[in-house]
């Protein structure tokens, strides 16, 4: 544990603005990036802000010919998938990430969550950019009507919302991490699938920007969760493990039912289920828990893995012989500058 303490006087006589609710008489202090208590806060801030992007930067209109070549069914399902993603990112932007601020272990963590909340809004807006570029208002409106009317989508959202507005900060973190590391991924499957077939490739590029952000969001929330959890007694830790396993199970089952509506008409449900389990494992690992699904249950189609991460489908597995980075040669002396490219 390498957290440096705040200057003793200030931390005892002042609070951060979110703490006003609990302690309205206390003096407030401004954020001080000159005294960072947890280096992870600054590291993540820098990574997230360096990754800043907007959907306007993605040439989505280049996907128009591909969009027109999809069937009406494919287009409808695609719009519903993306509207579902918009619902979840709207939830995260306006509630999920915001409600983490009050639980911040440090003031800089509070600032990081303001960035994360904003980027969830960017993600939500980016799906609209896809719609407005590729589709038309009547069809977009129909997809939004479908989202509001869809009981399973509503249930998925409200299962996590209950914890966002609850009293338990740890459960709040778990719910948020599970949403951002698990619930969205059935939706992300579709653009990756299209890109395997060299279709909607710019949309897939945009999805990869979203995925890059969300990986850091899940990592950070999971890290903060584990730090808080480590301070709890054994009974509470057990309670939280059981809670997390149960919530994961509930969300996973909901996910399969919801995704079936979207993907069974497209004949993709089996593959999607595998991808969901693969991401359920990652969501649990972000929280510091063992991956619950076996290797067999999470063997994602290599073409999908390659669409997600080129080269990752190669089996870097000791003596498999693959892995293009195997270079036989003399190692050279290196200096700090050598590691810069």
């Amino acid at each position, binding site marked *: *544990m*390498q957290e440096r303490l705040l200057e003793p006087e200030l931390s005892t006589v002042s609070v951060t603005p979110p703490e006003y609710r609990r302690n309205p008489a206390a003096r407030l202090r401004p954020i001080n990036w000159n005294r960072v208590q*947890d*280096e*992870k806060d600054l*590291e993540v801030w820098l*990574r997230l802000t*360096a*990754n800043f992007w907007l959907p306007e930067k993605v040439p989505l209109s280049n996907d128009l010919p591909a969009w027109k070549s999809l069937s009406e069914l494919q287009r409808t399902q695609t719009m519903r998938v993306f509207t579902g993603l918009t619902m979840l990112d709207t939830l995260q932007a306006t509630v999920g990430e915001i409600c983490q601020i009050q639980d911040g272990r440090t003031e800089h963590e509070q600032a990081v969550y303001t960035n994360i909340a904003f980027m969830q809004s960017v993600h939500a807006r980016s799906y609209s950019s896809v719609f407005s570029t590729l589709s038309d208002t009547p069809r977009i409106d129909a997809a939004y009507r479908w989202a509001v009317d869809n009981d399973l989508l509503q249930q998925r959202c409200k299962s996590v919302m209950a914890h966002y507005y609850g009293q338990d900060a740890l459960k709040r973190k778990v719910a948020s991490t599970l949403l951002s590391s698990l619930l969205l991924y059935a939706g992300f499957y579709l653009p990756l699938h299209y890109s395997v077939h060299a279709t909607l490739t710019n949309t897939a590029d945009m999805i*990869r920007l979203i*995925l*890059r*952000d*969300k*990986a*850091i969001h899940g*990592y950070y929330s999971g*890290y903060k969760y*584990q730090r808080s959890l480590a301070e709890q007694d054994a009974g509470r830790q057990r309670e939280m493990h059981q809670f997390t396993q149960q919530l994961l199970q509930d969300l996973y089952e909901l996910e399969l039912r919801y995704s079936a509506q979207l993907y069974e008409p497209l004949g993709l449900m089996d593959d999607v289920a595998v991808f969901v389990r693969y991401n359920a*494992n*990652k969501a649990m*690992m*972000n929280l*510091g828990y*063992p*991956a619950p699904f*076996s*290797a067999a249950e*999470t063997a994602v189609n290599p073409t999908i*893995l390659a669409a*997600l*991460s*080129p*080269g*990752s489908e190669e089996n*870097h*597995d*000791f*003596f498999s012989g693959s*892995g293009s*980075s*195997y*270079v*036989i*040669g*003399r*190692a*050279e*002396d*290196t*200096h*700090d500058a*050598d*590691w*810069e*490219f």
Partner: protein
Amino acid sequence: MTLRATPDSHVSPPDLAPEDSPNLIYFSSVSGNTRRFVERLGMPAARIPLRPRLEGMLHVNRPFVLIVPTYGGGSRSRALPRQVAQFLNVPRNRSLLRGVITAGNTNFGQDYCLAGTVVAEKCGIPELYRFELLGTPHDVARVREGLTLFWSTQPTDPED
């Protein structure tokens, strides 16, 4: 030199005698994800210090495999934790490196496990394995088997 115990279960002394130098060296940030994977391996390992200036840089004396996390989503030059670069800048450390295992996240696309690629290219050694986050039970089993097999094929003379 006195041995300094770190909060985790592995002692990270600055200078290890050959018989004490494990064949597994790793780096883990304050998140502890990689450290957790290494603990589950149940094999002797030493940790590259988080603060080499305060703790002293680790010096090894036996051939080893490196396990390193990737700092994803950034530039290639920042994929490798700076402490690992410093560790490998020590000529003797680098000369004993035989392979790298990398932790990462496929969400980073082309940058998945980039730190391993960087080390493999710079140091002329193979990328042995890649896993995500803190690794699944399958990853742990595979790495255990793989390392045992790997060392059985290495020449016993440790010198370059």
